[in-house]
């Protein structure tokens, strides 16, 4: 008989190297009385770690005695790269951080740059930003619901979640031309106006989504397996959340209704009517309920924002900051409008110089530093933006909620069962692109 789990003797006892599919053999060679400790490596390539998260779990039987979290596998140096591009190009980089919430990354960065510049953006741009952020929140929560359903055995949920998310991605595509990595929100406003088709599509989505949310609830909420896998699992109370810096749905599931849209409003959130869903159970079930309710609240906000969407500019009037041309669709894709090209090439030398300066060199941002925190789907997304007065960011640091929240994984998994590590980890909703940046 071949041995799938090789073992070797060490000073601390017998150590097995497990390669998968050989659990029986590990158990067979294991004396549960004298050697109770098993160290299991989970990830970084494991479907239930939401990307490249690595966990090292020490087990005693089925119970986890110690959890160590290893991150950094998706570190791409985005913050360093930002320092070598101009302020407008920065938005193209930050959108790639938390790839399930690109609009939030862009919004935090742009709000930071605008605060440094001391400018406000036109009303219409702010309203469209709110629409985009709330749609993005729904999309992000749908992915959370889909993947968590998959991990806990509700396979249909995974298909439904991604199916509805596709509609939101279609809206994003209509607005920005891209399904992800939009770079749609720019310092000073938006890359381009929201087309009427996108508004119609959003209305259509608003019609459809409440029924779908009901459907998910019918599918999961009464289901015994779902309840057993989530209720009383991975509990983290308010004290634990605050000590570990955990914000977002996890904090609200523990009973503290801290939502930056309400407590420190930005983008005019104080003018929208919506509730902050709160639960007291502090477990995976509570986080599930909070996220479902948040999707409903987001729909309410999107509806109000669509109603107040009045025609107007979507970029600041200041021609020293705003991109010199409106974008237009040509045969070879999106580019400068033909009228603008005709103007700079044939009529106005000054306009050509101005265009050249702004596009190649960018605009200058007065020196100083700001911190902007916004409520992303996973919690407080903070952008610490430093300028030295030049055309490029001096330093941009992202306080990503995935990074901070993951610190709580040992606290919520140690002492529990191995299977609950998956449910607990999923309930934190970590996105490694944001965590590792």
């Amino acid at each position, binding site marked *: 008989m071949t041995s799938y789990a090789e073992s070797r003797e060490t000073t601390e006892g017998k150590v097995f190297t497990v390669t998968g599919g050989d659990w029986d053999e590990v158990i067979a060679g294991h004396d549960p009385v004298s050697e109770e400790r098993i160290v299991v490596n989970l990830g970084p390539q494991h479907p239930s770690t939401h990307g490249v998260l690595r966990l090292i779990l020490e087990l005693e039987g089925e119970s986890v005695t110690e959890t160590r979290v290893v991150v950094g596998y998706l570190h791409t140096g985005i913050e360093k790269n930002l320092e070598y591009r101009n302020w407008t190009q920065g938005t193209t980089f930050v959108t790639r951080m938390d790839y399930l919430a690109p609009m939030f990354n862009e919004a935090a960065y742009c709000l930071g740059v605008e605060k440094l510049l001391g400018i406000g953006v036109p009303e219409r741009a702010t309203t469209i930003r709110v629409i985009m952020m709330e749609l993005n929140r729904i999309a992000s929560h749908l992915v959370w619901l889909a993947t968590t359903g998959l991990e806990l055995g509700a396979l249909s949920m995974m298909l439904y979640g991604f199916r509805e998310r596709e509609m939101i991605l279609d809206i994003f595509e209509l607005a920005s031309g891209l399904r992800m990595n939009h770079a749609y929100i720019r310092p000073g406003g938006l890359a381009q106006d929201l087309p009427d088709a996108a508004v119609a599509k959003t209305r259509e989505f608003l019609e459809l989504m409440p029924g779908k949310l009901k459907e998910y609830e019918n599918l999961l909420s009464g289901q015994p397996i779902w309840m057993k896998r989530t209720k009383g699992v991975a509990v983290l109370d308010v004290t634990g959340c605050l000590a570990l810096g955990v914000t977002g749905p996890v904090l609200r599931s523990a009973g503290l209704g801290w939502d930056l849209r309400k407590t420190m409003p930005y983008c005019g959130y104080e003018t929208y009517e919506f509730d902050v869903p709160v639960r007291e159970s502090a477990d995976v079930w509570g986080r599930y309920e909070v996220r479902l309710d948040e999707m409903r609240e987001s729909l309410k906000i999107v509806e109000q924002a669509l109603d107040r969407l009045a025609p107007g500019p979507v970029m600041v009037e200041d021609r020293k900051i705003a991109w010199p041309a409106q974008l237009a669709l040509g045969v070879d894709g999106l580019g400068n409008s033909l009228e603008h090209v005709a103007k700079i090439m044939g009529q106005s030398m000054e306009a050509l110089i101005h265009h050249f300066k702004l596009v190649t060199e960018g605009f200058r941002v*007065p020196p100083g530093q700001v911190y902007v925190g916004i409520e992303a789907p996973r919690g407080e997304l903070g952008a610490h933006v430093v300028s030295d007065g*030049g055309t490029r960011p001096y330093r941009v640091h992202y306080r990503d909620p995935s990074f901070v929240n993951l610190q709580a994984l040992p606290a919520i998994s140690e002492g529990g069962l191995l299977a609950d590590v998956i449910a607990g980890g999923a309930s934190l909703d970590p996105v490694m692109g944001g965590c590792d940046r």
Partner: protein
Amino acid sequence: MTVPIPTTPTGASSGAPAEHPPSSPAGRGMFGVAGSGDTSGFGGLERRRPTALDTPRPYGEGFDEVVDALEAAYPAFDEAIERVVVDRGELTLHIRPEHIVEVCQALRDDEALRYELCSSVSGVDYLGQPDGRRLHAVYELTSMTYRRRVRLEVAVAADEPHIPSVTRVYPTADWQEREAYDMFGIVFDGHPNLTRILMPDDWEGFPQRKDYPLGGVPVEYKGVEIPPPDQRRSYQ
């Protein structure tokens, strides 16, 4: 690959640190401009060192109240606080490294302050700082009770980059201090497990420092070679 030399830049007379690496050997940019460095001719922005600011009282916007409360709660206030800066509606307290833990403790526990949440810890490298203390650790604290924020800034020299860890007061600073160590080489004394977190364990150097090159290789596209981003021409 050439590593930029950490000297005071000569491009703009006021010498803002982000001008590393200088885009031309003379450090004068493409247009050879001295003075404000505003080669664009518009904007009229004057460069100045952001750290040279020191806001006099009254600070306004409710910040006097915060500083008064801290003064009352923390007896060694005058020793600990180097400068108070109010800029763009944000309050920054520059703290001497040895006092950071006690200041955090006072900010967290005092009833009039109640900064329960440490939102963010990050680093900034102000290369070419006249006093040599180029590495700054920046803490963003949030008071959920009073719904306000404060920023603490601690500056240390690169050859003596020691700051006491605030993990005892704010456990959430654990990973964030590890990141600041990983990226800037700031050593947080008393941290339970100060190891690299985003970079590989055996990585050499601290990538976010300003004298650490971005790296990259030239890319050929349609017969033209495009240099890596940090070697492309740039404007000052």
